[in-house]
């Protein structure tokens, strides 16, 4: 994405956390406005917490292996990944709202939001992989970055999943 079409940092952050907030609010809507508000804060907090807990490890690992040239590249790639995740959740929000409103079981609603969040996170991880691959030095084997990202992604998904079921579900 070139500079002309790249969204500003505040806009990207708004999308990145607006998507999870919308999905969280939909999950809590059946229980009332207060619950919706709480869930709208909980899901973005889980995303931010997972990113804060796991991204330093990725940056350190990638730097030691010589895969990321500078911190700002890593920051841009992370922001693009979070934006992709938020954007997908925002796009899925109308469909989720309809399904949650018409399906009688709250556990189905939770499963739908969990599945949508997982899908959006996977899209974000793909964006992160593409952005870091594009910035990686040409003399490093591409498989090294893929292996590092796969291992890191599994750990991040496990931590994020645990936080999701502790604080959102």
């Amino acid at each position: 994405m070139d500079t002309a079409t790249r969204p500003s940092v505040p806009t990207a952050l708004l999308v990145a956390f607006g998507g999870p907030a919308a999905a969280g609010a939909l999950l809590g809507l059946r229980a009332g406005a207060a619950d919706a508000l709480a869930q709208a804060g909980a899901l973005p907090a889980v995303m931010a917490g997972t990113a804060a807990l796991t991204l330093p490890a990725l940056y350190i690992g990638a730097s030691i292996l010589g895969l990321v040239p500078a911190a700002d590249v890593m920051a841009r790639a992370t922001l693009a990944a979070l934006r992709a995740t938020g954007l997908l959740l925002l796009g899925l929000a109308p469909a989720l709202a309809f399904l949650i409103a018409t399906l009688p079981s709250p556990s189905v609603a939770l499963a739908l939001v969990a599945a949508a969040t997982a899908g959006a996170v996977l899209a974000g991880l793909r964006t992160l992989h593409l952005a870091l691959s594009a910035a990686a030095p040409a003399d490093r084997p591409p498989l090294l970055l893929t292996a590092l990202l796969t291992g890191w992604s599994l750990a991040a998904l496990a931590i994020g999943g645990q936080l999701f079921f502790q604080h959102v579900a």
Partner: protein
Amino acid sequence: MTQQPATATATFDRLLRDLPATLARIRAGDDLAGLARVALAVLALSAAVFGAVLGAHRGGLQILYAAVKLPLVFLFTAALCAPALTALNAALGRRADLRRDLALLLVALARVGLVLAALVPLVRLAPAAGASYHMAVLLVVLACALAGLVGVFTLWRGLRLAAPDAAGLAAAGLLLVFSLVGAQMAWTLRPWLLRPRAPEPVFVRGLEGNFLDALGTTADSARGHYVRPEAPVPAPWPAEGRR
């Protein structure tokens, strides 16, 4: 020389017989409003015809109800899923344009509607061939699945033409969302054929259960395995206790 916009008849003809030209028009963004109008009209008309045939299983007012409701199922589903397609495209780093995505979705649905219209004689003849209510329901689900395959193919080709990168992922993602929303939308706006025991047609029944549970029950009933001694009489919408 400036290019004249295609007439509605020519657009319809291309929609039916020349898919690559229609998809190229979407990619170029050439008179998308005209294309969307034709696709919308084709979808509304063909879905209304198929809906009327479903309602004819019971007859009377149910013909009108089903003819009005089936186009709404498609249109509401498209309205809920178009933002998902644009978001999927954006998240996968593809070109994301809500107008083009909506046009592609409408074209795919119009072709679904045309296949359903082509299957009308088969569905209409099923009761005459001795098909029970449950067999008729399964036949309708099968017809919709067949028409859905045509829609998926159209969508996949359109997404590939727009940008080959991650087209399969975008199509698979949308298919998942569309199947869930479409099936639940059809379930929410039921009845379509109306149970033989139902006393009189209702426009919409109360909210209960979901599409997949009902499909399993219908498949069992079609094989003569009933989970209840007799079918319940449906309550009109809004159901008691949900007002």
